[in-house]
């Protein structure tokens, strides 16, 4: 057996767990999931008072595998491993951290690739469109299952941040702190436009078959690949892309053809191929819809202050100057609404060059502030 050498501050080898829920879940769409399963991982130990639990919901293309590695795939390191671990900003020696795969996902939780309870076939295109509110409602069932009445914190970046914010609205008494990073209170028309291009790439792929492609033994790879490529462009800043790839020609000279010329083309194709091999197109469609629909102010005539009134948590909000997908001005809208509601809030605007993806990077100012914030959370 190969011995995997892991850094001291890794949570180490982790394993996925599943929880089954048999009480029907009523969805925002009006649909009902008669029963569902959530895949999750935990790191650290729940204390006797059950007061040290931190939920880490994931963003668009991640999963419940937040930190550590799997025994059989030691190269598969959790997506926020630089944030979560013993001695890391979210310190698993002190906190009990939970990663959960969202409903409709493709990493173990009930989703389009799961079997429909009555037909015995995969749900496919019939799986309902789920929302951030639905995800939070499902996560609350997991909290009940784990015996957690109140989270010390819910922390997320991007779409994960929307879930952290929604937690403070759906279950104000069950969240003491919310860390809302690289967030927006709602997608802009431009954000929705990018999502729609991604969805059109998928649904117009001849292998899509209305979402029932499993039955045809195919997957809409080309569509999913394009969706990932366009998404990736929005995660990086112009400067970060230029610095990473410049105008370097793969073959040294222009090819005067449509094969790969520039390094950035190679990168995007690689990212697209990689993603299309591991992600489910039906899940991608639904997650982008959840992003589009998220808009807590909508039910309050566009008044975000009124929308955030139920929240009782203390907030840590952070944005990154080069993030043009969810720009700092969007985070400031959230901060302003929290101030109007007299919530405790700290706001960091980090001058980082990486674009939206900065929330996943090692920036000492950002990681230092998250660390300091967690250190001050009483247990």
């Amino acid at each position, binding site marked *: 057996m190969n011995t995997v050498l892991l850094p001291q501050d890794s949570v180490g080898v982790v394993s996925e767990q599943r929880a089954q829920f048999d009480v029907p879940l009523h969805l925002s769409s009006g649909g009902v999931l008669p029963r569902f399963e959530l895949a999750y991982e935990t790191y650290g130990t729940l204390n006797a008072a059950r007061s040290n639990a931190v939920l880490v919901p994931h963003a668009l293309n991640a999963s419940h595998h937040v930190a550590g590695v799997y025994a059989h795939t030691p190269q598969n390191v959790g997506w926020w491993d630089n944030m979560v671990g013993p001695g890391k900003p979210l310190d698993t020696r002190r906190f009990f951290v939970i990663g959960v795969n969202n409903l409709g996902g493709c990493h173990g939780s009930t989703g389009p690739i799961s079997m429909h309870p009555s037909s015995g076939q995969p749900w496919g295109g019939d799986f309902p469109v789920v929302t951030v509110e639905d995800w939070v409602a499902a996560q609350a069932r997991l909290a009940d299952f784990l015996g957690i009445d109140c989270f010390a914190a819910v922390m997320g970046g991007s779409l994960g941040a929307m879930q952290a914010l929604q937690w403070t609205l759906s279950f104000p008494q069950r969240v003491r702190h919310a860390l809302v990073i690289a967030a927006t209170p709602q997608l802009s028309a431009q954000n929705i436009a990018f999502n729609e291009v991604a969805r059109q790439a998928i649904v117009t792929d001849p292998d899509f078959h209305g979402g029932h492609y499993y039955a045809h033994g195919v997957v809409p790879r080309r569509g999913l690949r394009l969706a990932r490529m366009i998404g990736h462009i929005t995660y990086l800043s112009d400067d970060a892309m230029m610095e990473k790839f410049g105008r370097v020609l793969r073959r040294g000279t222009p090819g005067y053809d449509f094969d790969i010329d520039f390094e950035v083309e190679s990168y995007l194709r690689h990212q697209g191929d990689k993603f299309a091999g591991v992600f489910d197109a039906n899940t991608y469609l639904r997650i982008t819809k959840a992003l589009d629909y998220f808009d807590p102010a909508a039910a309050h005539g566009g008044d975000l202050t009124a929308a955030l009134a139920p929240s009782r948590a203390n907030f840590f909000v952070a944005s990154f100057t080069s993030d043009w997908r969810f720009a700092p001005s969007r985070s*400031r809208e959230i*901060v302003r609404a929290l*101030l109007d509601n007299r919530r405790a*809030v700290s706001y*960091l*605007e980090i001058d980082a060059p990486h674009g939206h993806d900065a929330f996943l990077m090692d920036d000492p*100012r950002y990681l230092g502030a998250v660390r300091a914030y967690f250190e001050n959370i009483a247990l």
Partner: protein
Amino acid sequence: MNSAPALLPARRPDLEAIARWVKPQSRVLDLGCGDGTLLRHLWETRAVHGYGIEIDDAKVLACVQNDVNVLQMNLESGLSAFKDASFDYVILSQTLQAVRHTESILREMLRVGREVIVSFPNFGHWNARLQVLAGRMPVSTSLPYVWYDTPNIHLCTLDDFESLAKTLGVRIGERLVLHDGKAVHMLPNLRGSLVVYRMSTH
């Protein structure tokens, strides 16, 4: 979290005065709050509900470590995030002389706070006057910077400031003039090196 209340630095006697003026459980906005020491002190000794505004990364981090609410924003772009009269006190301690849009910041402070507390070094102190008479820009404890390397761009005297306050229609509720940490009562514009004002528009 430490159990002992945060001590105010001995070099900042204006903070003592400010802390004395702030009523318990009030709402405080501290502009240019540094590492958050004043806010932490006010929270621990007076249970105030406070926020600080700070632009510097290291100081913002220090605020988070101090467990005070800090908002990383540029003062110069105004206080548009805050509603009218949403704070009992808006504090600007020893920063007025370093801001570019002095008048508009004062107006914004008066809009957001029921009371405004401002402290700054007095350029009218005799020592500064003497140095100028001698043909040099002053350097002293309260004005520690050499002219070519200073954040201070809008230095003023007590009389200058009070004249601006009059223009802005501000009522000065209280004034504390200090030198070496002690109150100065006679000839304040000559003998005081640091001044703290409490003001409002009503």
